[in-house]
């Protein structure tokens, strides 16, 4: 149990830059965006743009989520005769969120300002991402588990999970927009929390099933 968590840590640290990189990518794509479409840098669209880029960043990270373990056979060992496959999967998902969603949450407010959001909305951005990103990791994990066996999983994965990300995207953007308009954000808070909870409820089982299917492909 502790062994599982520790390993995730070690890998995260060992696979250099795995932690800093998502933020770097997010920052990078935000920049591209503003450069390509400077006129969009108006606070009304900023929230939506930010969230879209968060989704795409998450997508990029998800593709690598299980691939190493699949290729090295670590996945087989995780599922065969293990006492705690469920825990193992949960640990992995949690670490994935920590190294993407959580980090992005920390960077989110700064990027929002970069995109022209008023400074006052910073807490709202952080809140929205804190509540929303877990859903991305949980749902994404399902897609990643099913596509890990494919040679060109990347884009198929995108097709599978992006639709699932849609609600998070909408409410996340709405929360920030509401905060900006000065109206209450509670509805969006409830919505995001609910989505994340549902995702949490189904993800581990679905992921386990997906991984089993992928392992049968060899």
């Amino acid at each position, binding site marked *: 149990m502790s062994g599982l968590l*520790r390993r995730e840590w070690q890998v995260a640290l060992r696979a250099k830059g795995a932690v800093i990189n998502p933020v770097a990518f997010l920052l990078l794509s935000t920049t591209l965006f503003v450069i390509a479409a400077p006129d969009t840098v108006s606070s009304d669209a900023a929230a939506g743009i930010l969230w879209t880029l968060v989704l795409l960043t998450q997508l990029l990270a998800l593709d690598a989520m299980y691939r190493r373990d699949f290729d090295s056979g670590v996945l*087989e060992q995780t599922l065969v005769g293990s006492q705690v496959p469920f825990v193992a999967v949960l640990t992995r998902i949690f670490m994935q969120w920590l190294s993407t969603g959580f980090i992005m949450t920390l960077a989110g407010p700064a990027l929002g300002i970069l995109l022209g959001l008023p400074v006052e909305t910073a807490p709202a951005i952080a809140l929205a991402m804190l509540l929303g990103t877990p859903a991305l990791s949980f749902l994404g994990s399902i897609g990643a588990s099913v596509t890990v066996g494919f040679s060109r999983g990347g884009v198929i994965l995108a097709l599978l999970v992006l639709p699932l990300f849609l609600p998070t995207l909408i409410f996340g953007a709405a929360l920030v927009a509401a905060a900006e308009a000065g109206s209450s954000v509670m509805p969006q808070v409830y919505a995001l929390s609910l989505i994340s909870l549902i995702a949490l409820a189904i993800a581990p089982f679905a992921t386990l099933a997906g991984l089993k299917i992928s392992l049968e492909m060899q």
Partner: protein
Amino acid sequence: MLGVPPMLTLDEIVCERDGRGLFAPVSISVHAGDYVELMGPNGAGKSTLLRTLAGLHSRYSGAFDGVDCLFQGHRLGLDGLLTPLENFAWFVGLEDQDEDRERCLDALQRTGVLDKAYQPCNEMSAGQQRRVAMARWLLSSRSLWLLDEPLTALDASAQQVLAEIIVEHCQAGGAVVCATHSELPIAQKRSLKLEAFQSKADGPALGGDQSGESFQE
């Protein structure tokens, strides 16, 4: 051994791929202390059978029943970024034991890669990685081992160690099923041969309309 339930029983089992059986039905019951050598030409279905017994391949007819097993496939299941000790810590974590540094080092000593204990696995040679994987078996509490061509990449001395480890495991009341092409130097062995069907056509027709597929797609 009477009265003791077997650790693993196969009964008329046939693994299937693309809807056709791979080999003539096999039945065997493996008891504590047995070392079973799984033989057969390339493509006979050894790996598939082992994966089936490990629960990694669900397309089969017939039935099998067995205790928790330790599976060692073609892919070693070591995390290349981690050192052997870190890999072990994770592995015993899977069995919900907590690690014992001493045992880990002894195991590495036994398989002759103690000097690599603190080096990431992807910085080792093929044989050294195999040796690390071997050391891991010694830490497992599972009594049934399923090994797929464990001799691969091992030099003479390591092959000797492998044989000893297997024998000891059997004497300690474990059982080993091992797919291999070159026989291990082990005295007491049972051998399980996978007979390929004479011709593909003889395969049990499960939805014969698919019979072409194995050649086309």
